[in-house]
């Protein structure tokens, strides 16, 4: 481990990312909402911290090793979350406590979308914009963005990329060079965002809302500029646009890449993960809509259909937008929606959860054991599509699943121990680790009523979920630090 090399990269990254505070600063100047000073000082602070940590070690020219990659990624996420909290603390309005600001910032960057702020409408425009932008940056991954814009990361870029990208098979590159891959991912991400924003705008959102919601939709985040989330617009067209883009953003971006490159969409359907994702999401939609219809939650069947569809996609992809108070829906529907968020998006998408491909592999592995009972001597490879999956990947998926469940349980118990009721504790941890956002019970609409220790536990859960457990936990093992 070379701390100097890690420090150099971190300093560099911070310096570059301090410039992401410029757009909200500009928004603040334009709208004269009084938050400009907060952004200016946050920008100056970040820039100087980054520059000062980079300066003494700028001449260190060493490639990052595998271990350094983990440290850089985890450090960068935590440092950036901390620094991202600065505007919330410095601004006169909302002027959050440190805990609240950290929670809001981590929730933004990890694309969770859980908020502690109520009465969003009265906040300065620039703060609202800044929250949406946080989600957008976190969506495709800040490290992936860094790899795309900083070619000097070199081979170390691959180590960083692997520590951040979601999914069990991280070696599959879209292009031979990592910088090109990262660029391709961001181009796709950017184009989706632009198209989504235009669609929102044409459907009647104001330009400000359209941009903000495009950011958080394509990032599968869930922040909104209104307390009522998507429900504020009260437009089925907007809801359906959101459904389409949440669905697209939950698909593996390499499929988008292939489709774009070959100008051919047949690749989507050939992909087993995509088929399974569609199947799962359709079942969730079906169950929700039928559930709403038969429990007569809504008087009109159209409302049941549209609200059920929107909520199922929003929760299933882990975005967490709401058009209705789904946490007040009949218990079975609410909890089954929450469970669907455990699956989340596909590998290599912006969605959270354990990822569709992992579930698919777990299911196949389970089926294999059943076949083995019938044919004890058979060799049965685990296949995805027509390709056999390396047994190491299958093992890693099991390990991941076990750790996911274990982390979930520990944090659930910890939260319950702080005195929360079980439904609130359970759903809050689930919504955080899956990067979903809204939970059930006391955390349905917002997290403002949660006490401070609970918020810190949830912050950890959100980071754990976004960095897919391993990257964060490996830093907590003694073996990692042993020379």
């Amino acid at each position, binding site marked *: 481990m070379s701390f100097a090399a890690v420090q150099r990269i971190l300093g560099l990254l911070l310096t570059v990312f301090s410039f992401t505070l410029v757009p909200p600063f500009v928004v603040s100047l334009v709208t004269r909402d009084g938050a400009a000073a907060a952004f200016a000082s946050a920008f100056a602070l970040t820039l100087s911290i980054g520059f000062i940590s980079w300066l003494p070690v700028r001449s260190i020219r060493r490639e990052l090793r595998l271990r350094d990659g983990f440290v850089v990624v985890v450090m960068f996420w935590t440092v950036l979350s901390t620094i991202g909290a600065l505007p919330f603390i410095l601004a006169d309005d909302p002027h959050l406590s440190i805990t609240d600001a950290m929670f809001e910032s981590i929730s933004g960057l990890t694309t969770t979308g859980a908020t502690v702020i109520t009465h969003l409408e009265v906040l300065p425009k620039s703060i609202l914009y800044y929250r949406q932008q946080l989600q957008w940056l976190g969506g495709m991954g800040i490290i992936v963005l860094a790899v795309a814009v900083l070619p000097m990361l*070199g*081979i170390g*870029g691959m180590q960083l990329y692997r520590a951040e990208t979601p999914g069990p098979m991280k*070696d599959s*590159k879209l*292009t*031979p*060079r990592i910088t090109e891959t990262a660029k391709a991912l961001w181009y796709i991400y950017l184009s989706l965002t632009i198209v989504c924003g235009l669609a929102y705008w044409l459907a009647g959102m104001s330009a400000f809302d359209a941009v903000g919601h495009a950011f958080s939709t394509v990032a599968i985040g869930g922040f909104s500029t209104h307390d009522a989330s998507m429900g504020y617009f009260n437009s089925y067209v907007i809801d359906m646009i959101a459904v389409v883009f949440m669905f697209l953003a939950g698909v593996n971006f390499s499929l988008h890449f292939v489709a774009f490159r070959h100008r051919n969409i047949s690749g989507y359907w050939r992909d087993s993960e995509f088929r399974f994702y569609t199947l799962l999401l359709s079942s969730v939609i079906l169950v929700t809509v039928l559930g709403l219809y038969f429990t007569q939650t809504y008087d009109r069947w159209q409302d049941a259909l549209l609200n059920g569809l929107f909520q199922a996609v929003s929760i299933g992809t882990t975005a967490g937008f709401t058009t209705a108070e789904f946490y007040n829906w009949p218990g079975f529907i609410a909890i089954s929606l929450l469970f669907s968020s455990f699956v989340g998006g596909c590998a290599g998408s912006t969605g959270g959860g354990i990822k569709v491909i992992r579930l698919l592999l777990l299911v196949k592995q389970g089926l294999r054991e059943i076949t083995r009972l019938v044919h004890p001597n058979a060799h049965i490879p685990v296949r995805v599509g027509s390709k056999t999956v*390396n047994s190491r990947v299958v093992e890693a998926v099991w390990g991941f699943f076990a750790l996911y469940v274990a982390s979930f349980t520990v944090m659930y118990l910890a939260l319950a121990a702080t005195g929360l009721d079980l439904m609130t504790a359970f759903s809050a941890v689930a919504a955080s680790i899956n990067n979903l956002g809204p939970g059930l019970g006391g955390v349905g609409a917002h997290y403002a009523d949660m006490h401070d220790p609970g918020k810190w536990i949830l912050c950890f859960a959100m980071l754990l979920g976004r960095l897919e457990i391993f990257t964060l936990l490996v830093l907590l093992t003694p073996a990692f630090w042993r020379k």
Partner: protein
Amino acid sequence: MKIIILGAGQVGTTVAQNLSNEANDITVVDREHALLRDLQDRLDIRTVHGQASHPDVLERSGADDADMIIAVTNSDETNMVACQAAWTLFHTPTKIARVRAPEYLSHPALFSQGSLPIDVLISPEQLVTDYILRLIQHPGALQVLDFAGGRVRLVAVRAYYGGPLVGHELRTLNEHLSGAAEARVAAIYRKGAAIQPEGHTVIEPDDEVFFVAASANIPAVMAELRKAEKPFRRLIFAGGGNIGRRLASSLENDYRVKIIERDEQQARRVSEDLHHTIVLQGDAADEDLLLEESIEDTDVFCAVTNDDEANILSAMLAKRLGARKVMALINRAAYVDLVHSGTVDIAISPQQATIGTLLTHVRRGDVVMVHSLRRGAAEAIEAVAHGDKTSSKVVGRMVQDIRLPPGTSIGAIVRGEQVIIAHHDTEIESEDHVILFLTDKSRINEVERLFQVGITFL
């Protein structure tokens, strides 16, 4: 450039390593997951798993827009078929393949565009054999590299006390040399660091000096830098494989050659192939065997088995027992650094001998020869100048007016049959072959750009 490398063996790995540092898009194909994973961890490349010659594997590797395919799997047949598939299905412009078996190589008609469409055949064994041959023909040289079909050579030597030029300024070199002999020092390495040679640079003992001269003048130049060495007479090669056998067959008429081969069957086969060579069956690291074969009177002991450790150890043993010069063939780059200029006089890296041939085809501009030096850090290239004074940045200019990147020097110019050693006032003409030495390979882009002809020429 988009390049597909088939085979992640020793050659494939080295090529990938060298090329990926130069902003090329590299895809490596192999059948071994473990090899690919290892490469992927270290290099910024893409890997594809599968049988290299299968069209679907080639397609997955991006063959439809690849500029070059380098087939270096360990099977000649796979390499040949892969090139055929790449040409027929994807029209890949440049196809390079390693073909080892002399049975194929002896029929050049096989490799024409109409039959097996392979543009460049490389045979690492042949390249290594030539490399060692040149070293044996130039006693005292650390490295001898050919340019312009062997008319010009770049030679690396270590300067010693007693060489007439050692302790003197470089500008006196051509005064020392008698008659028409001329040479130019291209680079000097002192304690591992490159020094830009100027007229007033003083050569110190133990410097590694690279100079360029016409082939015939090389012994005279070397005699300036160290006491002239007696030509070699008695040679022992450890290992009767491909390389050992080729070496022996080309040297046995002029030298007294012995081969030590461990395997009895192989020893018999080699002895049947060769006429004047004594083939010994036994272990090259067997002290008694070496003593019995009067190792103390041997001029060169050269270990060329396919086992790095055995090569190094037997060479060290031979040196201790009194062999005059020992050389060892070493595949692993880390070992090359380890033994270089230690007990073992010369460490020969087959990858480095091979990579130059491949780099020749990757370089832009009209580059006819590339030699990779000092484990890839430096490079010597032969480039052809085209165009005229308006379209080219080199033609019609004197050497001192060409804006070379730092660490780069022009060693010699070959004009038709004539070899001109570069002076500051030598003017370069169109179609000249210019031999350059770069101590810092990362400047290669700037050199490439120098030799590219401007748009106006078209």
